[in-house]
């Protein structure tokens, strides 16, 4: 009797789950005509897009199944989906950093014809759009173009009797004056990674005239071990160690944001998504005291960071037309304007959005010239701020790890740059 019961139980369980399985499995959504599966990773713009999914359906009759996941979850899922040939995703969040790699692997569909066919193509900001051009074809449309700005506490700078630093050398002096026991002068990302410290460090690097390659894209000889880069690295190390909050050697964007919002740091130079959290009254105690400005420059001028995000279409998808409808809608003036109004100051990619009076009023509410600053920074930004090559993730990580080691005193700056260049060479040679 016991055996029967046990067997029955096991059988029921197994049977039960097998019965449940087909009911719960997604009904092969990709096969149906008027549906698109969209995979995005979480940021204000994408969350906003997910919230507007019904609008898309109302306008086009196509149902959008939008999945917004954490960035790390996203990367694993999309890599598996591509390599495994799962073909379950029709529209994919395509950061510019990845587009070269994905195109070389043959994972994206070109959309040149559709984009050229758009009547308002000129409205799209050139820099971000061109970033999606690989070997003459467009592989994505941008919806977000983050740039780099500086945020500083006007009250603390005034109290210390210093002006806004225009160059990184001036920043060293200003930091010295402003730094106190209660509030460190400056907080920036230091954690190793191409999207972590290597998102902000090139701003310093390039201001001093430093480069990654001898003459991108023609001469791709690694040139990271140079006097200019050494100077930049030394400035970075001094700023972080002498004028940064305790524990800065491991700071990533959450820690930088928290430090700004809590008054533990007076300045930062980082992406617009980060600095806008410093001036956001809903989260920052010092929102009113923070002022935004262009990042400091150097002998070679200013080089604000840039990070473009867009939407691409995976190769081999069965719903290419519907997919492009979604891409077009998501990057349209209307949608981007809605996002600009609903979400927390996203970095839109169409000029017409900036003309929208509601948008203007909202951004001016933070700071009069917020929108202008943004445009100016974007125009100054180099498209290849971080080189647009398929091996960038590897190279960026290698350089980032060495830079972080230098900041934390595990290596000297000279050793770090030497090691970085050696690793660049071996990665490119492989």
């Amino acid at each position, binding site marked *: 009797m016991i055996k029967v019961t046990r067997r029955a139980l096991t059988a029921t369980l197994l049977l039960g789950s097998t019965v449940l399985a087909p009911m719960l499995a997604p009904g092969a959504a990709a096969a149906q005509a008027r549906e698109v599966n969209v995979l995005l990773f979480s940021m204000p713009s994408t969350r906003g897009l997910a919230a507007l999914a019904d609008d898309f359906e109302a306008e086009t009759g196509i149902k959008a199944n939008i999945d917004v996941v954490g960035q790390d979850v996203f990367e*694993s899922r999309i890599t598996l989906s591509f390599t495994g040939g799962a073909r379950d995703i029709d529209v994919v969040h395509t950061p510019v950093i990845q587009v070269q790699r994905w195109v070389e692997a043959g994972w994206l569909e070109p959309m040149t014809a559709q984009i050229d066919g758009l009547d308002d193509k000129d409205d799209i900001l050139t820099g971000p759009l061109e970033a999606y051009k690989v070997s003459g074809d467009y592989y994505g449309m941008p919806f977000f173009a983050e740039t780099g700005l500086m945020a500083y506490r006007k009250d603390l700078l005034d109290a210390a009797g210093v002006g806004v630093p225009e160059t990184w050398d001036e920043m060293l002096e200003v930091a010295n004056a402003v730094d106190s026991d209660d509030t460190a002068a400056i907080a920036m990302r230091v954690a190793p*990674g191409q999207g972590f410290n290597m998102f902000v460090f090139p701003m310093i690097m390039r201001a001093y005239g430093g480069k990654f390659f001898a003459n991108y894209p023609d001469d791709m000889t690694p040139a990271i071990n140079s006097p200019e880069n050494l100077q930049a690295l030394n400035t970075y190390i001094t700023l972080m160690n002498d004028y940064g909050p305790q524990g800065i*050697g*491991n700071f*990533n964007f959450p820690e930088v944001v928290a430090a700004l919002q809590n008054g533990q740091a007076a300045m930062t130079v980082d992406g617009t998504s980060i600095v806008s959290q410093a001036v956001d009254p809903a989260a920052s105690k010092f929102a009113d005291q923070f002022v935004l400005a262009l990042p400091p420059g150097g002998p070679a001028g200013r080089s604000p960071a840039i990070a473009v995000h867009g939407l691409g279409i995976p190769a081999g998808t069965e719903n290419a037309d519907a997919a492009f409808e979604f891409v077009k809608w998501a990057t349209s003036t209307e949608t981007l304007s809605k996002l600009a109004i609903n979400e927390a100051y996203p970095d839109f990619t169409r000029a017409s959005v900036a003309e929208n009076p509601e948008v203007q009023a909202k951004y001016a509410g933070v700071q009069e010239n917020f929108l202008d600053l943004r445009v100016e920074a974007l125009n100054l930004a180099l498209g290849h701020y971080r080189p647009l090559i398929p091996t960038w*993730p590897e190279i960026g*990580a290698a350089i980032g*790890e060495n830079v972080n080691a230098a900041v*934390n005193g595990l290596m000297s700056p000279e050793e770090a740059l030497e090691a970085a260049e050696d690793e660049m060479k071996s990665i490119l040679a492989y």
Partner: protein
Amino acid sequence: MTPPRASAAMDRTYRRMLWPASLAVGIFAIAPLLGMLALSFTDFHLVRGWSGKIGIHNFLRLFEDRRFVSSIYIMMALSAFGVLAQVVLGTAIAVGLDKIVGKWRVARGIFVVPFAVPHVAVALIWLSLFTPTLSPINAVFAVFGIEVPALLTTQTGAITAIVIADTWATYPFVMLIVLAALQGISPDLDEAAALDGATRVKAFFRITLPLLYPTLLMVALFRFIETLKHFPLIFVMTSGGPGRATQATNYYAYVQTFQNSNVAYGASIAVFLFLFAAAISFYIAKANARLSDA
């Protein structure tokens, strides 16, 4: 000893019951493992694909790879200290619950709580505890004018921090198993020891603890295998830093597979880790078997 005839019938019954699940698990676990093994002999790259090459080139590269070699040292540090801390703490708490606290059942429930927290959340929570600007520990000590050092910015500090977070999250595992084992050990033994004139502490170390050795070894083995696969704690708390100081072997395999797109090389690292774990666990399990049969 059990009568042979019943034993055979029992065998058949149990094997019959074990087979379906083992088969399913086997397919879903063994097939991927074989796939991993196969991959390690190729040069499959996410972007460049497979050139058709088959050979042991990945394994040869492993031994010349400085990053790989340091990753092994880092992994051993994390595993050795981690397992030690978890076993000692888990046993201490189990013994404490069994002998000292005893009647308070709710205490057991409270001590198990850390194990239910997924490692991702554990990592985030301890990251905030170890970051001076975020941590309440630093805030409290600051009131007394003491500056708590930032652990995550030095190599030893970062490893210590990960060990602490890992221990916090996993000691309940050890605790529950030891607790169950303790309750299988008759309390008469303690009384007998007391009658012979031993103090309770001595009784514990001379009698109870040796009886626990098989259990402790088994638990240590299990935890050791788990620590070899450390990932969320490193990924979230240190990003492998400072520099590369906390890039343990499994983390390095992830870097090679997903960041550098070199899936075949990542697979070879995984294969190495697998064999390494197999070898060590073989020895520990053998020791365990010898102790059990003793």
